């Protein structure tokens, strides 16, 4: 028997095994969990800026999921590309940072030492810098602040 269910406000797992039609090019999904994505987010934003903005402009034009599939594939490919590059160049530092985020409620301020090492490595290897948009000019960004008020309790 078929019945109606809300697409997301439900506790029933709605699965549909039907594969994508063949005329749509195949693309791998990113497959990373929240912590690595959060750790790499500023680099994804910098590295894939053009693709991301293109995709969001396309979505602004028309919200139909069928309308921006091509742009969406580019976004996903770019993100996978970047994650691969991070893995190749800064595997250890990346791992240390996202493990720290995972254990600390995804708070950036809890993982500044790891972040500093990771950001330095990425800057050397991929020439990507973490920039927080909207920071007031002439003020140290929070990730570079020497003595922030928000800091982790001393680790024992």
């Amino acid at each position: 028997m078929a019945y109606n269910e809300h697409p997301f406000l439900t506790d029933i797992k709605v699965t549909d095994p039907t594969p994508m039609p063949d005329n749509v090019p195949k693309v791998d999904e990113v497959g990373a969990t929240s912590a690595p994505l959060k750790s790499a987010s500023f680099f994804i934003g910098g590295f894939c800026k053009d693709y991301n903005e293109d995709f969001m402009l396309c979505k602004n034009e028309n919200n139909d999921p069928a309308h921006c599939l091509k742009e969406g594939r580019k976004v996903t490919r770019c993100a996978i590309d970047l994650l691969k590059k991070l893995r190749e160049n800064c595997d250890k530092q990346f791992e240390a940072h996202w493990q720290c985020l995972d254990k600390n409620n995804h708070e950036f301020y809890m993982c500044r030492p790891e972040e500093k090492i990771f950001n330095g490595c990425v800057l050397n290897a991929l020439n990507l810098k973490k920039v927080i948009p909207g920071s007031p000019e002439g003020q140290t960004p929070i990730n570079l602040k020497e003595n922030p008020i928000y800091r982790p309790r001393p680790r024992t």
Partner: protein
Amino acid sequence: MSNTLNTQDLPPEGGFPSVRYQRNLPKRGPSGSVLLLGVTLISAYGLYRLGQTNLERRNIPTSKLFYRDRELDREKYWSRIHLIPLLQAEMDRDLYRRTLATQAREQEVMSDVPGWKVGEKVYHTKRYVKPTVVVIDE
């Protein structure tokens, strides 16, 4: 008569000692005004520190006067904003695939109804409307 005069009560030689009716406590510790000032200073420093903490954490883009630190929230927001296209693209692909599958199923179920349009919108608009229900086959 003379006997009575000799036994009358008289003050001692040099008079009575004075009566001590005042407490005699030594002065101890700082005065009240100093304590009040100290408490005020401590509270002022605490409030200043609280303000600094709020400025570092919150993101209030309203007042130019306090347009200072408050970077932690902006950092968090931007890390999420950077991930939106990625997550949205993935979700779109999934929704597109599901929509096609639903329409194929609808085609199959309604094939013997003449004049049935598969995937026809219930809303009179050209704008895309997100599906609000999903039909589950059990």
